[in-house]
């Protein structure tokens, strides 16, 4: 096993990790502010992927135009989910919210099957993004580089938003103590809505990246990556955005290295490995690596 091979695996892991990180941020932000796991978050990846396909192929929009539209659409979907499913559920026990979001997830999956059929579609990006770049022993396509760069840019932008703007301060305050945040004059509904919008926008872009990376999309594509991104958020510490980013990369790298370094007979057990890690972390280090202890919102 050469150094070049390992380097390639690491690069692949980082690219996968970027996508997990983007989705994990959404999970963490939403959990942080309403203390509920949004199962339906993964489906937004699927929506983003299909929307990109539609914009690029059906409407023939150029890529730099399609991408921001996908961000906006993701935000809109997030807001709809918040208003329709989560707001009525506010104040209900944890598990109720969880089942409800599971219901929304299944509903979205089946809406996808209904409207788009279960057939996988091919996903093609314009040629200039498919070009292969070779740096030493490592090769990747331009699209991969774009994925990593834009993921980092988006993460940076989000961190800036959360830590340096008034809205971000409101979000952090609301995540910590809703009643006192209200006493400051913060509009809780709008703050929660903004959180959903931001997290979902990132998930939609992750869908765009997913389609570009793997070339094939189907209505059920969001489910397992969504779950894995949740695992990533837990690893890093739910509720913490840097934690979600860290967890995303750790998971992406572990998954790729697991498959790449162990004998092929084990690669099918990849998903079992990921979820065993989840259970282990929940038992041993429930607050994740960077997480803070979060009281329930009863």
């Amino acid at each position, binding site marked *: 096993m050469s150094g070049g091979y390992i380097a390639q695996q690491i690069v692949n892991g980082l690219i996968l990790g970027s996508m997990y990180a983007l989705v994990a941020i959404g999970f963490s932000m939403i959990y942080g502010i309403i203390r*509920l*796991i949004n199962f339906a978050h993964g489906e937004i990846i699927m929506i983003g992927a299909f929307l990109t396909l539609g914009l690029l192929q059906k409407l023939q929009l150029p890529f730099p135009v399609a991408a921001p539209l996908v961000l906006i659409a993701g935000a809109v979907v997030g807001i709809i989910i918040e208003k329709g*499913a989560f707001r*009525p*559920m506010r104040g*209900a*026990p*944890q*598990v*109720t*919210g*969880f*089942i*409800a979001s*599971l*219901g*929304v997830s*299944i*509903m979205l*999956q*089946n*809406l*996808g*099957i*209904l409207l788009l*059929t*279960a057939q996988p579609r091919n996903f093609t990006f314009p040629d200039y993004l498919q070009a292969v770049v070779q740096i030493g022993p490592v090769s990747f396509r331009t699209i991969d580089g774009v994925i990593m760069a834009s993921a980092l840019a988006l993460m940076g932008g989000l961190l800036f938003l959360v830590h340096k703007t008034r809205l971000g301060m409101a979000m952090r305050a609301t995540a910590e103590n809703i009643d006192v945040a209200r006493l400051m004059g913060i509009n809780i509904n709008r703050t929660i809505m903004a959180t959903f919008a931001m997290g979902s926008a990132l998930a939609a872009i992750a869908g765009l990246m997913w389609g570009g990376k793997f070339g094939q999309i189907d209505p059920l594509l969001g*489910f397992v990556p969504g*779950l894995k991104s*949740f695992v990533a958020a*837990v690893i890093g510490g739910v509720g913490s955005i840097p934690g979600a980013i860290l967890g995303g990369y750790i998971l992406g790298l572990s998954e790729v290295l697991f498959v790449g370094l162990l004998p092929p007979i084990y690669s*099918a*057990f990849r*998903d*079992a490995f990921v*979820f*065993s890690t*989840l*259970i282990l972390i*929940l*038992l041993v280090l*429930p607050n994740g690596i960077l997480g803070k202890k979060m009281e*329930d919102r009863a």
Partner: protein
Amino acid sequence: MKRIPLHQIWYFVFVLSGAVFVFIARSTFNEYILSIINFVGIYIILAVSLNITNGFTGLFSLGHPGFMAIGGYITAVLTFPVAKKAMFLELPGWLSHLALPFLPALLIGGACASLTAFVIGVPVLRLRGHYLAVATLGFLIIIQVLITNWESVTRGPLGMNGLPALTHLWWVYAWVVITLYVSWKIKFSSYGRSMLAIREDPLAAQCIGTRLFRTRVVSLALGAFFAGIAGGLWAHLVTAITPASFSLVLAFHIVVMVVVGGSGSISGAFVAAVLFSTVTEFFRPLEESLDAYGIGEIFMALVLILILIYRPTGIFGTREPGFLTAKRT
């Protein structure tokens, strides 16, 4: 002579009329309708057994299909004729010469599912709320992956087919009665009351001194046992078993039944299971004729969400209908 309690009378009435129904059904209905009734029965077992786990103690387990799979596969391997075993599977010596009748195979399958529940329950049941739910989901996925890849025993993604068609309505009916009986007995025993107490307020229950942790593990194991039985019954009804049958979608379906019926209510689980399976059967031909797959699931999900918003305790809440619980007339 002691007065017979009212609820015991009702119980006899139900069991008897059920038996009469089964008898008539078997002689009048065609295969298709009989198989639907069988499925309804299996769903009832699944819903009521999940109620034991989720409903009474407030645990939340998405892992039920995993226990079903364990029970189903073990039962299938045990009843599989020796000749076929040699052809399709690579089993250790003692197993490859063994072919058991239905009942022992079912019981062993259920017991193995129960054992698995004990083993994973001890670490995992320390978790609470939605973290527990996610851990059980993880368990389900791990089981799926293991089954899909342990090809020598399970034939992997192809699964096993050509299983003997051992399930018929009397089997299903018997197990439905047993599951209901056990659930009922537990719920109205002092043990059952401590389970409900845990669900209402784990902190208070701990103060009363109920052995919180043990109760949770036992309720998981008990629910798992019946899920395993249901798996065995299911496998020998469909005469095939594949990993895809025990998915999160199934877990979701069972959860919908328990939630809609009212978690904690046995009658609720029963009624919801019947409603749910008949509605699914109604949707199936509809979807095919309209070429619109997925409508049934969307409908189910909508019903669930509406119930959670407007009537989160479900149709029956935690109660049983009054006439069934009245002690004396």
